[in-house]
């Protein structure tokens, strides 16, 4: 009876790769060349030789709320709890280029992240934080040029040599069109801005990663790990092509590219995915872009725990899920990790729930002993076979994107990847409802009792204060200087050969706001309306 039922059952990874009863030597023929050494091409085993023996991953919780001073407090709390790098979450008005006192921003100020309208807000955000010693991720995309300009202006005002600044900008607009949807301008000028930031950064802020090419949101949207990596690496190829078109050598910018993947629930598939991604990028760098330096082939990534798999039911269970995701990211060789808080389905984290995220990372780092050797699962019949299979499928998809879709910028305006992703998201939801896809506590082993947990509520007072602050700022500054600076911004935008960053730095120093600068950029570039192709 048991044998018959096993035969009928289909065993697959989350992405649909068949999983057999057991793996053995035959599954890892001629592995040596494909595997390589840690810290050496093709980097399957890890981007660095010593990995966590030399230095642990950065513990970097995505965080931001209310106004700058409220977020500043939370950052100091996180640093005191052992966080080793900052990651700024901006509110939606800031992400979309609206000032906090804009009518359209009314309900969203400070709700999902910190409200930043001016250089003054950025200064307050990092007050008392040594930005020359702590690396910061600025999770900003459409308005990345403005926020980057503010960050650099702040450093300058503090007398910090910007060539020493370490950190990352997300600055990946292509994934916005595909999944996250916080775009402003049409694709062409958007990609130009991404590359303006990258070009300026590699010349002036060499320790910074001016882009974190992101698959995370695509996976959260419903994509498989195969689609996630294929779309992400294809985005990276598009940005690289634009930079090369501008006359930059691949080896000049490649080692400043960084990546960002989700860590989902299929434990071994995610580990294999990270290894496959490194190997593929190494190949792309060498074969497609003819890189001459090893570090140009090195894929470094930030792992964001998947929030999409954390249900609202029995939220404390999510501590277990997030821990497993974190462990997978560590075994997969992440450089930087964010663990999703257990209340992710309900609100942004409380102090308590985010502390548990840090403790999760710290327990794995200091108690589990998995960090004592590099790539501990290397050589596992299953992991190596899965890495090979994922590589094959991802490359297949990347070829389709290239040859059939004409590259990602073209594909996203036609809705090709969006449709695929929503199809899969829909199927996943149906599978959850039929019980085929088990979500413990939601469709299996459920209880009627409701858990009582504290959740973080948006701070109305902070939001009101922020709106007043922006109005006051406009009254106090020199309007003539602001106007002149904004004119220069418009001119730079209209000149497709100019790099906008220098005029943006000058503009933010006059306390021109995010909204004012974006408005000027909209005049030059126009705006983009999502064609809603998907339903």
């Amino acid at each position, binding site marked *: 009876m048991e044998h018959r039922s096993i035969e009928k059952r289909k065993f697959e990874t989350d992405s649909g790769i068949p999983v057999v009863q057991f793996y053995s030597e035959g599954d890892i023929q001629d592995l040596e060349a494909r595997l390589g050494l840690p810290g050496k091409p093709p980097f399957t085993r890890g981007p660095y030789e010593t990995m966590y023996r030399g230095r642990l991953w950065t513990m970097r919780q995505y965080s931001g709320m209310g106004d700058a001073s409220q977020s500043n407090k939370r950052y100091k709390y996180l640093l005191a709890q052992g966080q080793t790098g900052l990651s700024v979450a901006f509110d*939606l*008005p800031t*992400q*979309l280029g*609206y000032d906090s006192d804009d009518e*359209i*921003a009314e*309900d*969203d100020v400070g*709700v*999902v992240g910190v409200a930043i309208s001016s250089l003054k807000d950025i200064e307050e955000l990092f007050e008392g934080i040594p930005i020359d010693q702590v690396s910061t991720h600025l999770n900003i995309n459409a308005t990345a040029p403005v926020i980057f300009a503010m960050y650099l202006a702040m450093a300058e005002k503090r007398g910090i040599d910007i060539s020493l600044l370490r950190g990352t900008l997300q600055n990946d607009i292509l994934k*916005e069109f595909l999944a*996250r*949807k*916080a775009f402003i301008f049409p694709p062409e000028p958007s990609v130009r801005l991404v590359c303006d930031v990258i070009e300026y950064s590699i010349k002036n802020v060499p320790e910074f990663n001016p882009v974190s090419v992101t698959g995370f949101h695509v996976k*959260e*949207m*419903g994509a498989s790990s195969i689609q996630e990596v294929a779309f992400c690496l294809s985005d990276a190829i598009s940005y690289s092509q634009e930079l090369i078109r501008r006359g930059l050598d691949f080896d000049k910018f490649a080692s400043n590219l960084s990546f960002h993947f989700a860590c989902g629930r299929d434990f071994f598939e995610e580990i294999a995915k990270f290894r496959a991604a490194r190997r593929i990028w190494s190949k792309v760098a060498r074969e497609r872009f003819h890189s001459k330096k090893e570090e140009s082939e090195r894929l470094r990534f930030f792992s964001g725990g998947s929030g*999409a798999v954390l*249900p*609202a*039911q029995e939220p404390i269970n999510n501590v277990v899920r997030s821990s497993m995701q974190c462990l997978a990211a560590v075994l997969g060789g992440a450089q930087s990790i964010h663990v999703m808080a257990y209340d992710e*389905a*309900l*609100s942004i984290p409380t102090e308590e729930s985010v502390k548990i995220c840090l403790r999760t990372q710290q327990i794995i780092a200091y108690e589990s002993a998995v960090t004592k050797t590099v790539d501990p699962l290397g050589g596992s019949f299953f992991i190596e076979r899965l890495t090979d299979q994922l590589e094959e499928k991802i490359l297949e998809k990347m070829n389709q994107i290239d040859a059939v879709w004409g590259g990602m910028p073209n594909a996203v305006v036609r809705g090709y990847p969006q449709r695929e992703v*929503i199809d899969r*998201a*829909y199927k996943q*939801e*149906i599978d959850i*409802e039929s019980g085929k896809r088990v979500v413990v506590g*939601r469709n299996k082993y459920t209880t009627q009792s*409701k858990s009582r947990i504290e*959740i973080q*509520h*948006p701070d109305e007072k902070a939001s009101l204060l922020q709106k007043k602050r922006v109005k006051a700022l406009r009254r106090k500054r020199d309007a003539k200087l602001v106007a002149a600076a904004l004119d220069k911004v418009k001119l730079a935008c209209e000149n497709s050969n100019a790099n906008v960053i220098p005029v943006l730095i000058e503009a933010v120093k006059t306390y021109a706001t995010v909204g004012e600068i974006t408005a000027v950029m909209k005049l030059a570039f126009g705006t983009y309306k*999502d064609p*809603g192709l*998907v*339903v």
Partner: protein
Amino acid sequence: MQKTSGARSEIRAFSSEIGKKPPRILIAKPGLDGHDRGALVVSRALRDAGFEVIYLGLYGTIDQIIQVAIQEDVEIIGLSILSGTHLKVAKRLIERIREKKGWKVKTAIGGIIPDEDIPKLRRLGIDVIVPTGTPISKVGEFLKGALKKGSEKKVKRRAAI
């Protein structure tokens, strides 16, 4: 002019009761949040459940959404809200609908809605609430149920005459 559109929506409500014409719903995300996986998946599910879905998408103001809802003569306005602003938005939506006297439209809000806010939304006048975790196969049922409530009242009135 108003009489004609009133009669048209009554006919549609009656017809959808006996399954002849598909119920029409407008789905939109008000405010600035662009995370539309839920809204898109629910739209797909409702389409499969026999609804006519007008997907307005992202970045709509309540006024814009209402304008399109009237133009498209929908029976339900469905909003997807993940950013915690559902109470504010619900209040504004109901206020604006009531300003259009005589307009009978049902409202539904889906997304990240803590348990304690569900009765508050009901009190504000929202007809259907779809918090995260609601099976998408049930959303169609709940919405059809809300439509039936309205048309039952109308049928009874006619019978009384």
